[in-house]
């Protein structure tokens, strides 16, 4: 047995530690909770010079998986980590990885798939991997995350298939435990051995090494033996290619016991396809995956004390599915209750139920197999829950399939005052609610279509009018067919509305006016003074959960103060949507939509098309709406393609980017807009690394290249300029096509500065010309504020010194870096000035 040392680490940390010990060539990744820490920890170690892995922060998971694939075809050892929607976004890459037989290892910290969006742990993501041709190992505890990560690479290369190491998001990924790792990295390197790519000097190209059983790997970098990887293939060949893959899975099944044994010799820890606890003589067995397995053991002990012969089993390998081993584990059971942390909706069970049923159907003795869906969206699994599942299964008339732990809803007895409720009026509520609804109803009837369906719950007679039916097609059904209302706006009379919807009239106070001058081809904007702008009703309610001093609501409010009339708003995933729409509450008083991280622009294009088409067909009232997509700089990384596509199509909408220079929502990983040199959780500062290593993205220039009618940058430090540009963007988007507006947005938490100082920090970013304020109107660039003219220009280090994330750069040792950054900022600014002076540029 090799020498080991004790660590106190989480699953994510151990996955990273294993990767460091292996010293992979390349990791292509994209941050997504809860797997992000794997890349973050590798970045910390890289900053300290502890490994040589090229950590490539892609602009999205699809590209990350592509980077991994490319590197693996080039003979590299490759690593990745992802979760949930990231896994699904990359999904189409995975069958290519396995179908062309390129080994690699990917960790999946399992998490709920959207939507509605949830970041917590269940198994709905990993089950999408079942058909990809990847080997899937499932670790039930942090120790096994480490062990499987080492074994996975060995297995991957032994059978030439990619391997996913899955484990519970949060429960395992974030839980710290005492565990053992090999004290010496060389032990790991010896265990894995060198990768024998065909282009390694001294390796013959295509022949496997028959004496050692080692594989040789094709390489697209092999110039002596050129190969074509990724053929165009139809029948009769595809079925043969798939059969090869099937054979490799069979081979993996044979290879795994050998690898388990070898690893045990090395580490002293036994690994297996699956295991059970007090299962040998159990009448009733619970099947669970992941961390719940251990919790269920406690329940088994409790039930055994009562004389109930209970047991629990789990599997550590999902592909290849260990049918034989599973049968052995449950050969005595009379009832098996399979608890699935996901559902294959409509199949009568989650995926594990289906697989267990399939595996056991040929057993001679008949086994009763029940299925329960539990623990979705990170719902905790207590010992009591495991006991309850057993007790349910003991009932002779237990349902074959059900959900465990759902809430019906309604009025429930209150406990402590702090219990989360969705907020309701205190004292005399019902009488009050009725009056509030009536008042609103009377006003609503007179309002425009935006308000037409606000009060459909008590407005049966009004629903007869055609216009209102069109605005809210379900109104007519309210209360007619069943006791339960089918009106989608009905709050069951229990919860009064807090606000009236903001009407078009109210939101047109005339703070700004825009007129298009046909002769000059310019949009003339007037107004926008702050003292008047306070008259714009807030389309977003207070009470949202942004951090104290956060710039996002500040920028949104300034933007919305400049947009008169109706607004429909869409958010891409990011802090902005998370802090405003935490269920069961929402901050929005105007129609709001969230889709994915990366395709908000496309989604809003669809809404715009629906609006135009339905207006054209007379199904929707005449009138104008400003369509607004809001995204962080992260969304403009992963969603750049969608934004460019929308701009090129010229859809009538505004793309608004709040740029806080990082993926703040997930704990500040670098974005492409993070300033060069800045510290982030994927660009640490250490002896071998100074922070982010490349320049900030010039997104306005990218958008300008689509030749949309309006591009502008705004900052809260120049608020009137901000409001006016918002008005122009709205006018352009309604009349001419796509408008793009970008604001620099403060993040006190991750910029690591004081919340009250943010406006000065923003002003400094403008004054150092890092974030120049300009607009490009129908191709003509205007610099709206030039810090040089008022002698206000400051060096970029002055701005850097104001923020904890960049403070280190002020030190003398980083001077070469900051000089480079200053030069790039000046170069970009000089070009901007030139363009501002010459209409043709």
């Amino acid at each position, binding site marked *: 047995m090799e020498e080991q040392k004790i660590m106190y680490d989480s699953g994510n940390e151990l996955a990273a530690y294993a990767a460091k010990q292996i010293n992979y060539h390349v990791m292509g990744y994209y941050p997504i909770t809860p797997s992000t820490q794997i890349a973050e920890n590798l970045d910390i170690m890289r900053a300290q010079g502890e490994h040589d892995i090229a950590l490539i922060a892609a602009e999205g998971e699809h590209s990350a998986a592509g980077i991994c694939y490319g590197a693996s075809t080039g003979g590299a050892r490759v690593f990745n980590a992802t979760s949930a929607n990231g896994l699904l976004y990359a999904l189409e890459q995975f069958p290519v990885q396995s179908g062309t037989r390129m080994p690699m290892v990917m960790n999946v910290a399992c998490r709920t798939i959207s939507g509605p969006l949830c970041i917590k742990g269940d198994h709905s993501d990993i089950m999408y991997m079942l058909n990809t041709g990847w080997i899937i190992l499932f670790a039930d505890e942090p120790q096994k995350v480490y062990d499987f990560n080492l074994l996975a690479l060995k297995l991957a290369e032994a059978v030439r298939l990619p391997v996913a190491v899955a484990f519970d998001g949060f429960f395992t990924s*974030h839980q*710290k435990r005492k565990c053992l790792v090999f004290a010496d990295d060389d032990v790991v390197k010896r265990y894995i051995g060198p990768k024998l790519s065909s282009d390694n000097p001294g390796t013959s190209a295509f022949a496997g090494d028959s004496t050692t059983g080692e594989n040789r790997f094709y390489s697209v970098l092999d110039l002596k033996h050129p190969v074509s990887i990724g053929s165009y293939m139809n029948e009769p060949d595809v079925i043969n290619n798939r059969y090869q893959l099937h054979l490799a899975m069979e081979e993996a099944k044979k290879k795994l016991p050998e690898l388990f044994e070898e690893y045990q010799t090395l580490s002293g820890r036994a690994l297996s396809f699956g295991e059970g606890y007090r299962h040998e003589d159990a009448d009733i067995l619970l099947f669970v995956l992941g961390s719940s397995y251990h919790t269920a053991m406690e329940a088994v002990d409790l039930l055994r004390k009562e004389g109930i012969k209970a047991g629990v089993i789990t599997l550590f390998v999902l592909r290849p599915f260990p049918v034989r081993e599973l049968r052995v584990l449950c050969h005595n059971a009379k009832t098996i209750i399979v608890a699935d942390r996901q559902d294959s909706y409509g199949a009568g069970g989650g995926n594990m139920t289906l697989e267990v049923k399939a595996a056991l159907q040929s057993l001679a003795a008949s086994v009763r197999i029940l299925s329960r869906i539990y623990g979705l969206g990170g719902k905790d699994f207590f010992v009591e829950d495991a006991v309850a599942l057993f007790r349910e299964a003991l009932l002779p008339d237990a349902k074959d399939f059900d959900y465990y732990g759902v809430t019906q809803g309604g*009025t429930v007895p209150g406990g402590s*005052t702090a219990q989360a409720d969705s907020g309701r009026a205190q004292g005399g509520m019902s009488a009050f609610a009725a009056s509030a609804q009536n008042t609103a109803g009377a006003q609503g009837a007179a309002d425009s279509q935006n308000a037409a369906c606000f009060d459909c719950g008590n407005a049966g007679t009004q629903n007869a009018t055609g216009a209102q039916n069109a605005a809210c097609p379900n109104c007519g059904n309210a209360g007619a067919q069943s006791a339960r209302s089918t009106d989608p706006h009905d709050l069951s009379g229990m919860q009064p509305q807090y606000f009236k919807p903001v009407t078009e009239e109210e939101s047109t106070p005339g703070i700004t006016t825009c007129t298009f001058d046909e002769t000059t081809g310019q949009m003339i904007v007037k107004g926008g003074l702050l003292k008047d702008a306070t008259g714009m009703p807030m389309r977003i309610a207070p009470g949202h959960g942004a951090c104290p001093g956060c710039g996002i609501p500040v920028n949104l409010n300034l933007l919305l103060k400049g947009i008169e009339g109706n607004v429909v708003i869409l958010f891409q995933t990011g802090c902005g949507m998370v802090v405003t729409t935490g269920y069961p509450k929402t*901050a*929005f008083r105007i129609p709001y939509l969230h889709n994915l991280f990366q395709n908000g622009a496309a989604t809003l294009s669809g809404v715009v098309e629906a609006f135009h088409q339905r207006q054209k067909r007379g199904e929707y009232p005449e009138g104008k709406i400003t369509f607004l997509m809001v995204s962080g700089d992260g969304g403009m990384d992963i969603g750049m393609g969608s934004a460019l596509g929308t701009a090129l199509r010229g859809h009538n909408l505004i793309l608004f980017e709040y740029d806080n220079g990082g993926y703040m929502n997930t704990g500040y990983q670098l974005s492409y807009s993070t300033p060069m040199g800045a510290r982030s959780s994927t660009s*640490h500062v250490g002896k071998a690394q100074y922070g982010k290593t490349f320049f900030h993205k010039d997104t306005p220039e990218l958008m300008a290249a689509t030749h949309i009618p309006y591009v502008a940058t705004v900052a809260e430090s120049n608020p009137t300029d901000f409001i006016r540009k918002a008005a122009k963007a709205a006018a352009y988007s309604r009349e001419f096509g796509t408008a793009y507006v970008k604001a620099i947005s403060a993040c006190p938490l991750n910029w690591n500065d004081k919340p*009250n100082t943010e406006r000065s920090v923003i002003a400094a970013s403008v004054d150092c010309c890092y974030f120049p304020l300009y607009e490009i109107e129908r191709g003509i660039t205007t610099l709206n504020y030039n810090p040089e003219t008022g002698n206000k220009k400051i060096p970029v280090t002055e701005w850097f010194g104001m923020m904890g994330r960049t403070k280190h750069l002020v030190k003398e040792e980083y001077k070469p870096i900051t000089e480079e950054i200053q030069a790039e900022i000046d170069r970009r600014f000089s070009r901007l000035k030139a363009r501002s002076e010459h209409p043709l540029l």
Partner: protein
Amino acid sequence: MNKTTILPTTNENGYFEIRLESIGGLGANLCGKMLGELGALSLALNSLSFSSYGSEKRGSPVKAYIRWCDSEKPLRVNSPVTHPHILGIFHEGLIGTHPVLDGVSVDTKIVLNTPLSADEAAEKYHISMGELYCLDALTIAMESRSRINMVMLGAIAKASGFIPLDATEQLCRDTIGKKYPALIEANLNGVRLGYERLTRASDERNIEPIPAGNTEHFVWGWDNAPIGGVNPRIGSTVSNDLSPSREGYIPLFIQEKCINCGLCDSTCPDMVFQFAPGIYKDKECMVNQGLDYYHCKGCLRCVEICPTNALVMALEKDYPEKPYFRTNQHLLPNSIRYQKTGANSWITSDSYMDEKRVDGGVV
């Protein structure tokens, strides 16, 4: 290797459990991690620790859980700690607004950060059960130039009755020293003072527990929630009371100095200012009527920007009745029931947060 510690007590499943209740920014996450590590490495126990999965944002509620058992026993339970043997409360404002005292029994050792004496605190917060230990961790942290989490760590070690001070100090050295050697002494001092300055409330307390609430409340479930997670209740975040996010300071409004320029409204992230049509200097204009303190998170952006000092920084405790407190003027109901909460978000990553803060110490 260290000698195995004998746990003084365990629950029915054989575990000794600790729960920390805090708000983001006080470093409970790191404290929990250190306690977990202490158990695994110094006390030679089997140990696990994790934090409430969600936020480490400033001002949002955070929980950390630690579970220990004998080194030979496997740690099987992965769920949150419901009945702690030690309950650390980092922020007294959580009591009464969040169920931080849930699961306390007569044997629970409660370590509470408060400037009150232990007996005063017991009375004020109706803590009728458990061994109550109190200390003014904030003052000690400021005095020692460390942070609340280090002071609480020392206090928890002391209250436990079996965690040795020297092991705690060594852990502090290892954790802080690796990255910030310059901060070791201050933090060690914080740990020591926490250990020393703990006072214990009398066990003979004659305090009525708060009666269980009998109010009903309404929840959305599968039977009544609008399908698809669609939310028709517009602007409903308004019922959140964000005042727990404040760190002791509020903006104070002096209306006679106000020129109604609107700068405050342009910098406020929380829609606090209530401007309404009115008369200022004989002219009709939008006039600042006051502040909605339910939603003010105390960032003080407005104080920084106000050109006439009509908004100034004030200590919240000096203003139990806030002048010019105006609830949101657009609310339909006359009064609503507010729910105390903090900022919320998803920070699930501690690699960046585990840093020296600008204002000293380690989070």
